[in-house]
């Protein structure tokens, strides 16, 4: 009888400890881990989604028809430099993907430091564009860079 009482007492103490200390702590650990993994998640937008977003952007354009993807390069913090072409011409497009993929510089829009400033476009994208500018125009560049950060 006495032994049974002790067992019951122990059961109650262990249950209370579990419910008040262990379970909330485990739940907190799990929630924190989940939150951190969400914060650091580095998702990549599919090429199809990129093309869809750009085609939606140029839908009402008289100058550019439907585009298809040539290449897509992902940069830090979900920035993309995308090369697309319509039936005749190839274009560079800058996209970002924070809450959803969004075109920052559309096909055929003039790409300089000045019209993308204050949006946090990584300078590596400008450098990549500059190389392409040089390749396309024989060295005439929109900006000179001395980048060694």
């Amino acid at each position, binding site marked *: 009888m006495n032994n049974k009482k002790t067992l019951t007492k122990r059961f109650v103490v262990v249950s209370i400890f579990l419910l008040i200390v262990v379970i909330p702590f485990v*739940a907190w650990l799990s929630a924190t881990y989940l939150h951190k993994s969400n914060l650091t998640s580095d998702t990549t937008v599919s090429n199809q989604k990129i093309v869809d977003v750009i085609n939606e952007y140029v839908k009402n354009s008289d100058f550019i028809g439907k585009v298809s993807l040539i290449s897509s390069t992902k940069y830090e913090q979900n920035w993309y430099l995308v090369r697309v072409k319509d039936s005749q011409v190839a274009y560079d497009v800058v996209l970002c993907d924070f809450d959803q993929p969004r075109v920052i510089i559309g096909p055929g829009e003039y790409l300089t430091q*000045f019209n993308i400033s204050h949006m946090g476009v990584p300078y590596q994208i400008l450098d990549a564009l500059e190389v392409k500018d040089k390749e396309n125009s024989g060295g005439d560049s929109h900006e000179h860079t001395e980048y060694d*950060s």
Partner: protein
Amino acid sequence: MNIPNTIVNRYTVLFVFCLTGFFFWFFMFSFFSNSEVRKTGDEYDKLSGVTVSLDAVNSAETPNPNLPFFAGFESLTDFGISNDDLRYIQDVLINFSLYNAHLKSAKISFVKDSFKNENIKGLDSVYSFRFGLNDSDIHLIRVTSNSVDRKITIVIFDSSNKQVFRRGFDIYSV
């Protein structure tokens, strides 16, 4: 071995309570860690000595939610810095805070009384000042600006005076 029913029952009840408790606390903790608590109202910035309206900062529409905000940089124009220079300086600081310091939504403060007109070499005017990231982490920035050739070079040094960033631009006016 026969386990008495009362024991099976109380362990079942305990298990159900633990499971329910886990989900309850899990959703509570998830809710509070996901809800972003943004500061609002006015905040005094001790480095620049100006008051920043955080409501204005929060309401700024931008495709990039990680952009930093600036405190006290408007006083640079009082020292004769052109709006073009200021635009390029701020753009460099945005890139620096995001991709070199790896800070999201940082506060970049102009350090009061740190502006120095260093010298004029030919057509180049050289000036420097200090800025802080999130109220600390003070850096020196040195700007070489040429308003005739329309070129600007911006160099950032860390607290031990080591060059950590350098970039030059052709200036395009708005």
